[in-house]
């Protein structure tokens, strides 16, 4: 692809991107090509083994690609970089640090922590609804609250590409719904480009501007579906016929198992 036609609006671009393990024995991801526009929200949905997490890790630079190309802001990804930050299914908080200290970790790893950094971290914790828990330790928080801290830490990095690997997958449905609504509000506020991995079709459509439907063996992107509902989206949108038509379509692409 000619690099000169890459528009400024494209933040993440993949072209024939592939990843295999064990000298090609297992193909985790096969020939993925896509453009992701600045500020858009993309959901990656599909069953286990479809390569969703692999794709995120390729973009983050945590693992090396086997073939093709993947670019962030026009540069080929070689290693983790400051514009890209990741959030995991487990909160991965450090048990010996308070919420505030956990949120400050990215800043600390990249230099000295100033008073402004502390202020920003405290503000982010307020943004995710934890203003009364700045000095609580992870084990004193519920699972949902721990993920809120992880979300604040993600935002503290200042990255404009956010990679979320089933961030609320381990939480109960009510907590998850509420956090999804807040996630949409928050990433909208900070204007980040977001890639969100999930097993859940409804969640995938509800949150996204684009849904990448992925299928396993070998892992690949079967279809990219545009979701054009206006924002902000109420939870009740999930019961409209248009929404359900999209759900049915995604199920169709995923095949018999769903």
């Amino acid at each position, binding site marked *: 692809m000619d690099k000169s036609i890459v528009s400024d609006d494209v933040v993440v671009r993949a072209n024939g991107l592939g990843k295999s393990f064990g000298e090609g024995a297992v193909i985790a991801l096969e020939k993925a090509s896509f453009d992701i526009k600045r500020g858009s929200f993309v959901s990656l949905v599909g069953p286990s083994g479809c390569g969703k997490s692999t794709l995120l890790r390729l973009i983050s630079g945590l693992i090396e690609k086997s073939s093709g190309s993947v670019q962030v802001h026009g540069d080929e990804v070689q290693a983790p970089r400051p514009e890209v930050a990741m959030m995991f299914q487990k909160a*991965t908080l450090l048990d010996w640090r308070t919420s505030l200290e956990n949120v400050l970790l990215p800043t600390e790893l990249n230099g000295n922590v100033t008073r402004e950094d502390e202020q920003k971290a405290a503000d982010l914790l307020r943004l995710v609804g934890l203003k009364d828990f700045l000095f609580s330790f992870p*084990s004193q928080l519920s699972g949902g609250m721990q993920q809120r801290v992880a979300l604040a830490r993600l935002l503290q*990095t200042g990255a404009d590409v956010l990679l979320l690997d089933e961030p609320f997958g381990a939480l109960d449905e009510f907590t998850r719904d509420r956090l999804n609504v807040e996630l949409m509000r928050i990433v909208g506020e900070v204007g980040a480009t977001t890639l969100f991995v999930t097993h859940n079709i409804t969640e995938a459509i509800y949150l996204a501007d684009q849904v990448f439907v992925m299928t396993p063996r070998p892992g690949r992107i079967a279809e990219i579906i545009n979701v054009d509902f206006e924002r902000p989206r109420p939870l009740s949108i999930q019961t409209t016929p248009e929404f359900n038509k999209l759900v049915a379509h995604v199920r169709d692409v995923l095949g018999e198992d769903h």
Partner: protein
Amino acid sequence: MSNSQTFNPAKTNRAHLGRKRALLHVVIFSTLIVSWETGSRIGLLDPLFYPSPSSILNSAWTIYVANATIWYHLYATLGLVFLGFLAGSIFGTGLGAIVGFNSVVRRFLKPYVIVLEATPRIAVAPLLIAALGFGSASKIAIIMLVCFFAPFINTLSGVVNVNEDKLELFKSLRASKLQILKKLVLPEAIPVMMAGERLALTAALSGALVAEFIQRDKGLGSMILIYTRNLNMASAFACIFTLTVIGFLIFRGMEWLDHRIAFWKNEAGLARVSTKRARKMEGF
């Protein structure tokens, strides 16, 4: 009665139960002591081997106060335990860290570790004395030998079993190797390392006694041996109870230290440090 809202029948019941239990403890303990005393007085227990509680107390008074012989030996044993523990613990922790961080060393060292774990290490004590001669050096070496293993294994496993998800987080945040070590690996290993140190200190006390049984120049171990040989069982018992107290204090002391250092592993520690951090950062 104050008012119906503060009246808590469950709580009152619990307090009542607590008092009842304490009373039961006192009754059982007194019965035990009184029957022991009577048993030895009426000749049911041979006072030669089972001296009465009153004669043990009497001996304790003699060795602690009247001629105060025990202090010299008490210091000797405690000093030995301290030095031996320090040496064994530094050696074990250091070796554990080196092996933990080096996968090649780990692979080739593993069979030796298994062999060492299966061998009762105290069996080597006579050889150490043969090699190092009588004196403090061989005693400390014996203690080192019995107490280095727990810190070694626990440090090793603490360092090796670092949480993969957290490691990935640190990598995604572009942390350096040193940062990963300082801010993730070491803090994560601390609780299990502390558990190793606790085991080591208890083992050090046993090791010191064995060393003193073999070399009877000084220390509580040699006192017990000499008193027993002279059929002064009451004094031997007084020494044994001294060791009980030392063992208890060591256990409690290490527990206290553990709760301080690995504060995030217990509720009280979390609450305490949380309040402290909040006070330090007032204004947020």
